[in-house]
C-alpha cells in the first residue's frame, strides 16, 4: 500500500463518499421526476475517479464522459453548482445550458462531461499540448469507458499522444458493458490495457474497486507524464451499480454479478482498510459520511429553490463576439 498523508486519506474518503451520496440521491430523485433530462450514474466506480484525481491539481485538466458526475466531484467541483445544473437552474455550473452531459469548471481543470462517446480523448490531448508548448509540468487525463476504445478517436488520440510524447493519462473505466453490450462481444482481447502495445506506450491494469491500487499505479503514470516520457493507458476493471441510464431495466446482466462487485465495494473496502490499519479513526469516517449526505441534501434544497434561467438566456454564450 502506498504511503499517503492522513490529510490525503481523509480527502479521498470524503470525495468517494460524496460521489456515492450524490449518485444515490439522484437515483432516488429521478424516478420522482424532480429534475429534467437524463442521467448516467457512476456509483461503484468511485475509486477510479478519486484514485486518479488524487494526483492532479486544478491546472491538470480532465475530460470526462456521459457518466461523469464522479469525475467532476473527484476533481473538486462544487456539488451545489452541479446539482443546480442537473435541475436546469440559472445557478448551475453551466447556467442550465448543459445538464448532466455538459458539466464543466475550467478553473478546476474539468473540461467537461461529454455526450459523445470517445470525444474526450482527442480533447485531452489539447491541454497536454499546451503543457508541452509552454514547458509546464501539467498533465491531462481522459476518462472513458471500454466501449469508447472501439472508436476511431481512441486510436488516433493514443497514437498522436505517443508520437508527440504528450503528458496524458488515458483512463479506461472498463465496467463490462457499453450500454447493454457486454465487453466480450465488442472487444476480442481480454485486457484493454494490451491495446497500448499498438502505440508503443505502457498499458497498465488496475483494480478499479481498490482505491489504493488505482492510486499507486496512477502515481507512476503521472510521474512518467510530468517527466516528459509520454502517455500511459490505464485500464481500471470496475463496475457500475446502476443501469446504463436511470430507468434501464438491466435485462442484460445478472443480479449475482452486480452483488459480486458490491461485495468488493470500493468505499467499504477503503474504510475497512484505513480503520484496521489505524490510519483513520471511525469517528472521522462517520463525520465525513454525515457531512456528505448533508452537502447533497443542501445542494438539492438550494437547487430546488434556485431560479430558472430567463428564456432569452438561450441566446447568450454562443460566441465571444458576433455582430
Amino acid at each position, binding site marked *: 500500500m502506498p504511503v499517503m498523508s492522513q490529510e490525503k486519506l481523509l480527502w479521498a474518503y470524503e470525495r468517494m463518499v460524496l460521489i456515492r451520496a450524490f449518485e444515490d440521491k439522484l437515483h432516488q430523485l429521478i424516478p420522482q421526476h424532480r429534475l*429534467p*433530462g*437524463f442521467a448516467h450514474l457512476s456509483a461503484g466506480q468511485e475509486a477510479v475517479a478519486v484514485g486518479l484525481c488524487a494526483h492532479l491539481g486544478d491546472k491538470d485538466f480532465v475530460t470526462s464522459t456521459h457518466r461523469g458526475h464522479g469525475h467532476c466531484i473527484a476533481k473538486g467541483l462544487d456539488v451545489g453548482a452541479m446539482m443546480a445544473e442537473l435541475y*436546469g*437552474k*440559472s445557478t*448551475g455550473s*453551466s447556467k*442550465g*445550458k*448543459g*445538464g448532466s*452531459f*455538459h458539466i464543466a469548471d475550467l478553473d478546476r481543470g474539468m473540461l467537461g462531461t*461529454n*455526450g*459523445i*462517446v*470517445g470525444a474526450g480523448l482527442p480533447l485531452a490531448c489539447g491541454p497536454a499540448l499546451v503543457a508541452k508548448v509552454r514547458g509546464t509540468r501539467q498533465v491531462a487525463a481522459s476518462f472513458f469507458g471500454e*466501449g*469508447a476504445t*472501439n*472508436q*476511431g*478517436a481512441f486510436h488516433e488520440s493514443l497514437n498522436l499522444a505517443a508520437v508527440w510524447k504528450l503528458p496524458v493519462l488515458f483512463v479506461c473505466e472498463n465496467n463490462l458493458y*457499453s*450500454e*447493454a*453490450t*457486454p465487453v*466480450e*462481444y*465488442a*472487444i476480442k482481447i481480454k485486457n484493454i490495457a494490451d491495446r497500448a502495445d499498438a502505440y508503443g506506450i505502457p498499458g497498465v491494469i488496475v483494480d478499479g474497486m481498490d482505491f489504493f491500487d488505482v492510486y499507486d499505479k496512477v502515481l507512476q503514470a503521472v510521474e512518467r507524464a510530468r517527466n516528459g516520457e509520454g502517455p500511459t493507458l490505464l485500464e481500471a476493471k470496475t463496475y457500475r451499480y446502476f443501469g446504463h441510464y436511470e430507468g434501464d*431495466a438491466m*435485462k*442484460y*446482466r445478472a443480479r449475482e454479478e452486480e452483488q459480486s462487485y458490491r461485495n468488493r465495494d470500493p468505499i467499504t473496502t477503503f474504510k475497512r482498510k484505513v480503520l484496521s490499519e489505524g490510519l483513520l479513526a471511525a469517528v472521522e469516517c462517520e463525520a465525513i459520511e454525515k457531512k456528505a449526505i448533508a452537502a447533497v441534501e443542501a445542494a438539492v434544497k438550494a437547487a430546488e429553490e434556485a431560479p*430558472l*434561467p*430567463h*428564456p*432569452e*438566456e*438561450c*441566446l447568450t454564450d*454562443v460566441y465571444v463576439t458576433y455582430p
Partner: protein
Amino acid sequence: MANREITYREAINEALRQEMERDPDVIVIGEDVAGGAGLPPDMQDAFGGVFGVTKGLLGKFGPTRVWDTPISEAGYMGAAVGAAATGLRPVAELMFVSFMGVCLDQLSNQGAKLRYMFGGKAKVPLTVRTVIGGGVRAAGQHSTIDYSMLTHIPGLKCVAPSNPYDAKGLLVSAIRDDDPVIFCEHIQLYNMKGPVPEENYAIPLGKAHVMRPGTDVTVVAFSRLALVALKAAEQLGKEGVSVEVIDGRSLSPLDEETILASVSRTHRLVVVDEDTPRCSMASDVVALVARKAFLALHAAPQMVTPPHTPVPYSPPLEDFYIPSSQKIAEAIRASLEARV
C-alpha cells in the same frame, strides 16, 4: 384493419419486419439494435435499440440479419456503405443524428458520392435510421435536427416522417430505394399513435403531404413541427383564417411542385422548422419560392425556426428554443398583415 392504430415506434418496427421478410438482403446494423449480444438467449434483445424500435427483430431473423455493433459509428457506417455497394440492402441505425459527426466521412465522402465518382457504376441502397429533435431536455449533443446539413449533400436522400402512417410508408420506400436515404425519426413522436394499415405499402420519396387545404397562407413545416403547425392552423381557422399546411416530409428530393402550386394560390408563405435557420430547410424553401414564385408573393416569406444557437438543456431555455404553436400563429398573422 385500416383503422388499426399503432405507434410511430411500432410502425417503424413493422416496416423493418415486413421488408426483412420480403427481401433477404435487408439487414439491420447498429449499437444495441438487439442489446446483450453474445449473452444467453433470454438476455439478448435487451434493448432493441435505445428506443426499442428494433425490438423482436433478432428473435425473428437471427444474428445474421440483426447486427449489434461495438461503439464504432465510422466503422459500421462505412461497412454498411460498402455492403450496400456490393449486394446487401442495409438499414443502419445512428442512435442520435448528433453522432453523425463521428461517421460523416463514410456517408458524405463515401456513401453519397461513390456512384457519381465511379461514373454510375455503383449503387448504394443504404438506409440510415436516426433520431432527431429536442424537447426531452437532452441538451446540445442529443437534441439536434441536422437534416439540413444532410440534405445539403448531393447523393443523399432525406425524409422526416411526422406520423406513424408516413413513418411506415416512407421507411419501406427508403429501404427499397437504390440510393442512400437518411430516415429521420423525431424523438418526441415514438409514442404517437395513428392509423396504419397492416399490409405493406410504400409512400414515394419526393412527395409532400397537404395536411390541411387552405386559401389565405401556405405553411410548409417539417417533422414534428408539421403537427404543431397544424394545431396553429386549426386555431386560426376558428378565427376565419384559411391556412394551408404542407408537411414537407421528403426533404431530398423536395416536392417543389406542391409548394409552388400552393403559394401561387395563397400568395403567402410561412416555413416552420426545428433545425437552426442558417443554410437550412427553412431558408431553402424560402429561396425556392423567391426564385420560382416571386411574382405570386403578396408578402415577404416568414421563417419560424429556433435561433442560431445550440440546443439548451433547461426547460425554459429549450421551450424558448423550439418553435411553439403560438410563435407559428404569430408568424402566420404577420404574413397576413404584411404586404409587398
